[in-house]
């Protein structure tokens, strides 16, 4: 089957194409070169006047794993308001803050997304994360495996094990849990909370292990680099949500010494202590530091107003924040001497000073970071807002007058505390395509995704150009996944299954002997039963694994 997409205006930053009229050919799921004049086209789509981008990639979205399912269970009232009917092409489910898996896949696809990455896969809960994601249709998926509060690593640091030993453990865990990157959440802090520490600064030591967050970041960022994992260490830093935490964030950037590092949902880590309410925006200083340090990438974790639920591995900070729970119910969990989680429902209000300023801080960050290849569009779904609010967020970034209209409606004191009104920048379509496609694929290390040149998988989204960017991005005309038409006029017309992206760094097999002993002594399962095998992805007949090359490797 040869498909031709004719005459669309193509935005493909991966090939440096910025709004050029160009035909695209699809064969066997992939984009191919023009096959020659004599080859018969089986299906042609006239895309004249349409905007064509590759399928969007959400590089940080909580779509799989135990805390998400706790969030679902906790909020039946939130689902009740958003029932989703079964159709000939789709399963039923529920939506809003933490949608059911099938609805997650459909709604992402209906916005032109074709991949999503779960950023907080606990190794011990990785099976669940992958099983949930296996029930998300259409999307490709993958996960970043959490380390940094796990007893084994902290024990190694206390014992001053060398970097090589740590690299082996990191690689082993990544392969056992089938991830594509390494994440650290409140480094050492989730563990510290179990020893009754209630805060942990960058240089404060975990009371049991005598290890500081700074040391954990250093060894993990080094491990990721030395193992050749493309995605930099994915960092949810210390002191999330604490006024004044911008200094911790600046110190974290400085302290990593040029190693590649991704700072996630940086909005929640960009707070100062100025003003009458002792809460102010640190976005300008953070953006300046990001602009200066080319080893740093960030995603924003934009807050948008309304009901949502926050679900995080950072149970230390989630516990501290539980008094803000709305509705007033919340869950905290300590997990297997490995990690933890906290689930706190949240209602961000535009007339609440702090929430309103959080909204402005996120937007300031987007607009003050120069390089769209190093900043990514996220709400940290569902923590800042559900992913379904992306089209609205895109409009805020692309449309200054709309942004200023919105700004005029928020808490008046927050308006005074933000420079937003003075920022003229409007994102271009090409910049949006970088943030949500080419940049994300490059950051994660996805081969053959996020671009529209020949050889790429045919994940393609087609929009009707519309000055109202929210309308435009909410309802693509067509979405193709691996060359199959899955969405027409913003509605799923056909469902299929994506792949799971992983990397497979090497480790010294001898470490498994130590791990086996360790598991037998302290943990609750055998090491052989802990490791996830390939057949766990394939035995339901619809999953697959796609391993991407390490840095320096040729695919």
């Amino acid at each position, binding site marked *: 089957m040869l498909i031709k997409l004719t005459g669309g205006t193509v935005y493909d930053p991966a090939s440096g194409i910025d709004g050029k009229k160009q035909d695209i050919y699809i064969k066997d799921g992939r984009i191919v070169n023009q096959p020659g004049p004599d080859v018969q086209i089986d299906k042609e789509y006239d895309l004249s006047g349409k905007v064509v981008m590759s399928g969007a990639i959400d590089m940080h979205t909580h779509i799989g794993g135990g805390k998400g399912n706790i969030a679902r269970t906790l909020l039946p009232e939130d689902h009740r308001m958003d029932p989703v009917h079964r159709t000939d092409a789709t399963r039923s489910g529920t939506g809003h803050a933490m949608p059911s898996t099938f609805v997650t896949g459909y709604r992402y696809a209906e916005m032109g997304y074709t991949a999503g990455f779960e950023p907080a896969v606990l190794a011990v809960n990785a099976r669940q994360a992958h099983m949930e994601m296996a029930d998300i249709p259409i999307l490709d998926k993958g996960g970043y495996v959490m380390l940094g509060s796990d007893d084994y690593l902290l024990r190694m640091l206390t014992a001053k094990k060398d970097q090589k030993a740590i690299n082996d453990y990191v690689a082993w865990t990544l392969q056992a849990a089938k991830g594509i990157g390494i994440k650290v959440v409140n480094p050492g802090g989730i563990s510290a909370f179990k020893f009754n520490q209630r805060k942990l600064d960058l240089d404060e030591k975990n009371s049991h292990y005598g290890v500081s967050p700074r040391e954990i970041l250093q060894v993990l960022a080094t491990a990721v680099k030395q193992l050749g994992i493309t995605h930099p260490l994915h960092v949810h830093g210390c002191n999330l949500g604490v006024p004044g935490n911008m200094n911790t964030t600046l110190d974290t950037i400085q302290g990593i010494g040029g190693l590649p590092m991704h700072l996630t949902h940086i909005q929640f880590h960009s707070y100062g202590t100025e003003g009458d309410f002792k809460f102010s925006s640190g976005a300008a200083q953070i953006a300046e530091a990001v602009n200066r340090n080319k080893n740093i990438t960030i995603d924003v974790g934009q807050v948008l107003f309304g009901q949502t639920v926050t679900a995080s591995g950072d149970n230390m900070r989630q516990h501290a924040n539980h008094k803000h729970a709305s509705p007033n119910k919340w869950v905290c*969990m300590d997990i297997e*001497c490995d990690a933890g989680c906290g689930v706190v429902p949240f209602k961000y209000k535009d007339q609440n000073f702090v929430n309103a300023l959080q909204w402005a801080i996120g937007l300031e960050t987007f607009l003050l970071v120069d390089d769209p290849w190093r900043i990514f569009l996220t709400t940290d779904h569902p923590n800042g807002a559900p992913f379904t609010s992306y089209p609205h967020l895109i409009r805020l970034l692309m449309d200054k007058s709309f942004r200023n209209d919105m700004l005029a409606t928020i808490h008046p004191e927050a308006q005074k505390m933000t420079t937003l009104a003075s920022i003229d920048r409007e994102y271009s379509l090409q910049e949006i395509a970088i943030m949500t496609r080419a940049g994300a694929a490059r950051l994660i290390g996805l081969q053959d995704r996020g671009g529209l040149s020949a050889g790429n998988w045919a994940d393609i989204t087609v929009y009707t150009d519309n000055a109202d960017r929210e309308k435009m991005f909410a309802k693509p005309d067509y979405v193709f996944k691996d060359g199959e038409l899955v969405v027409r006029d913003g509605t799923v017309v056909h469902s299929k299954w994506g792949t799971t992206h992983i990397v497979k760094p090497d480790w010294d097999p001898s470490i498994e002997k130590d791990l086996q002993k360790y598991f037998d002594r302290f943990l*609750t399962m055998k090491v052989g039963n802990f490791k996830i095998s390939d057949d766990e992805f394939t035995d339901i007949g619809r999953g697959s694994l796609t391993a991407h090359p390490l840095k320096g490797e040729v695919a």
Partner: protein
Amino acid sequence: MIEVTEVPSPFCGIGTDDLTIRVDGVSLKVVENGCPVNTPAFEQAITDTSPRVDGKDVSLDAAVAKAAALLKGTNQPVIGGCATDVNGMRALLALADRCGAVVDNMNFNATRRNLLALQDSGWMTTTLAEVKNRCDLFLVVGADPESFAPRFFERYLWNQESMFLEDTGNREVIYLGKAPSGNASTSPKGQKAQVFECGMEDLPELVAVLRALVKGQPIRAESVGGIAVADLQGIADKLKAAGYSVVTWAASALSYDQAELTVQTLSEMIKDINDLNTRCSGLPLGGKEGDQTANQVCGWTTGYPARTRFSKGFPEYDPYLNDIEVMTANGEADALVWVQAFNVNAVPPATDLPTIVIGRSGMTFAKEPDVFIPVGTPGIDHAGHAYRMDNVVAIRLKKCRDSGLPSTSDVLNAIEQAL
């Protein structure tokens, strides 16, 4: 004859995965690390291998076709049991979505006591490895962990080594409500658990007073449910003094009206202790034989726990109205599908409705169902996934033998296809 080692069990709820099982043809013998719960569940013999329609042996295809035909004209089918592995639940929910059924896990009335508390105010909980390595005070409220899972204490409290405790034998165990059924809670050194017994009907009041004492509220009464308030004060003091206490209960044991309020009071007390400069966590016992699995898979598939209806073309959760035992008794259902791949004794409720049973081989019936399809057991006849009681760890179940029995998901997918 072969031996399979490191076999995980879906039966005990605590994720025991060190069993050694000798396989001789299709008969199994647990030769290492068995227990009164796991051993008979693994060793249960296969009886039926052939599906039946109206009591007569038929092919699988014929049984599937008959099941589909029975479901085709229905207005309100119900699917009960819901005791299977993750793939089985996936297929069950797909079928329910397809035919507009009500899905109801057989132990939901017990689970509901936890869910109502969770959905009203939340809780703080922990998992088995944290208990094993961290817990210095274990408070059991109205439950009997050793009859729930005979190896609970051996594996998670009297473990030889722990990460953070010098000597696990120094842990304190306190029972409030029920006395233990055996001696598993006695430490290896011979230290017996402290037991404060009362009638189950007094438990709500007892728990309320304990929470008040934790919060430092004055109590005028001198005893509650036969237990001296001074003794409860002692427990409250210990909870506040402990470094990492764990409070456990079993929703199934709290079999009185509004037991969710007991769960809620305990959960709020645990939160209170965490605001008193120390740590404390809950550990609800439950979730065996696919209960936790049913709620997890239904949770991510629909957004709701496993008492959910699809009658209107989308999922609707109601912890009371969607009780299929009530529905079948009230004439609100017109067909019953019963799915139980783990336990031959867990048979469908008595009913005159057309009944399709997808059950573990060995199941016997007072009244022959219209269709009976014997299926393999996850973790014995086929690989699969099951959740442990602590909700975080999904264990990878192994295939131990070649019985030729289809899996739950094979059968339910086939019925869905036939519709």
